[in-house]
């Protein structure tokens, strides 16, 4: 990592004084409405086919699933919040920003691969990275890496259900994909939003 900046490394105080660009929290978006409609229609169809017992069976099963997931969601949200607070913006935009090159994509890939937890961790953390200066390319590499070569889902679900051979083989095939996806994302992004890119450079 080059240390050519003439000024001294600024202390972490900027993390305190400057509120991080907050996420827009939509109360109820269209995605929620679509899912709610899908769930209502499906539940009605299940009720017609299997009666009240069928509906209750699924409800109790999913309620216990929900109870199990809830603490992990909290952990994911806290992880995302802490990470976006403690990562130095300047360093992140240097090592994961638009100018970070292949190294940035590799860092994003490595980060996605070692990140513990499920979607409740990956998306809050990815969102935090975007907020502190990672570009779309590196963040795409991270998300794709988490979903394709991350060990969390593979260990918890894929190996028990699909078997170790298939899973390891599938992961080997997937190894190059995060970097390629990130590179493609970066390639398309600078052509799609040339202005935004220069804004980010200036910031």
């Amino acid at each position: 990592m080059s240390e050519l900046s003439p000024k001294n490394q600024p202390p972490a105080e900027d993390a305190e004084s400057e509120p991080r660009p907050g996420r827009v929290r939509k109360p109820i978006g269209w995605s929620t409405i679509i899912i709610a409609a899908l769930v209502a229609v499906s539940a009605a169809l299940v009720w017609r086919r299997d009666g009240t017992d069928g509906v209750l069976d699924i409800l109790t099963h999913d309620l216990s699933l929900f109870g199990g997931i809830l603490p992990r969601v909290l952990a994911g949200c806290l992880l995302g919040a802490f990470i976006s607070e403690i990562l130095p913006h300047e360093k992140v935009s240097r090592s994961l920003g638009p100018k970070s090159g292949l190294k940035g994509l590799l860092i994003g890939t490595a980060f996605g691969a070692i990140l513990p937890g499920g979607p409740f961790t990956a998306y809050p953390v990815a969102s935090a990275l975007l907020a502190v200066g990672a570009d779309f390319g590196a963040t795409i590499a991270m998300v794709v890496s988490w979903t394709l070569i991350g060990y969390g889902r593979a260990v918890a679900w894929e190996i028990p259900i699909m078997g170790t051979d298939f899973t390891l083989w599938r992961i080997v095939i997937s190894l190059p994909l995060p970097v390629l996806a990130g590179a493609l994302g970066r390639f398309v992004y600078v052509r799609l939003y040339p202005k935004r890119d220069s804004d980010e450079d200036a910031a």
Partner: protein
Amino acid sequence: MSAALLIDMLLWGSVFGVGLIAFRRGPPVFKASLREGSMDFINIVPRIALGVIGSGYIAAIIPQEVITGWLGADSGWLGVATAVVAGAATPGGPVIGFSIGTVALKSGGGVPQVVAYVVAWALFAFQRVILWEIPFMPARFVWFRCAVSVPFPFLAAAIAMVIGKP
């Protein structure tokens, strides 16, 4: 020790690790991020509740044979393309996605098609995108990420065709 427990320990270990770093930056930093994280949690819970409690119903009405029938070994690139659509359209969580993949493999599905299915499901299963990714990430990023991910299940299938079976 179960894998899930191990992953939970890693997860909470990471939370405590980064929390400790934040705390050493000073209590205001720690408190601000704690509040931020808790607010995210409170905002996200209703959507998670809807998705998790509802996904069982969505999965219950989609017959799995419809999806597995598309992934035959002789289906070639058309089969790969259908596998990608099927992966994106599969409702429910990982149990359903991987079970469908296993059923397809056991009932004569082609390996490249099943790989394309599993990779497409991992990249853009609609329910995960709508339920998890959009609430947490800027929508513009999510659509962009999905669009540039489209070639990759095909690429995975091509690699599977070249290097052969597991």
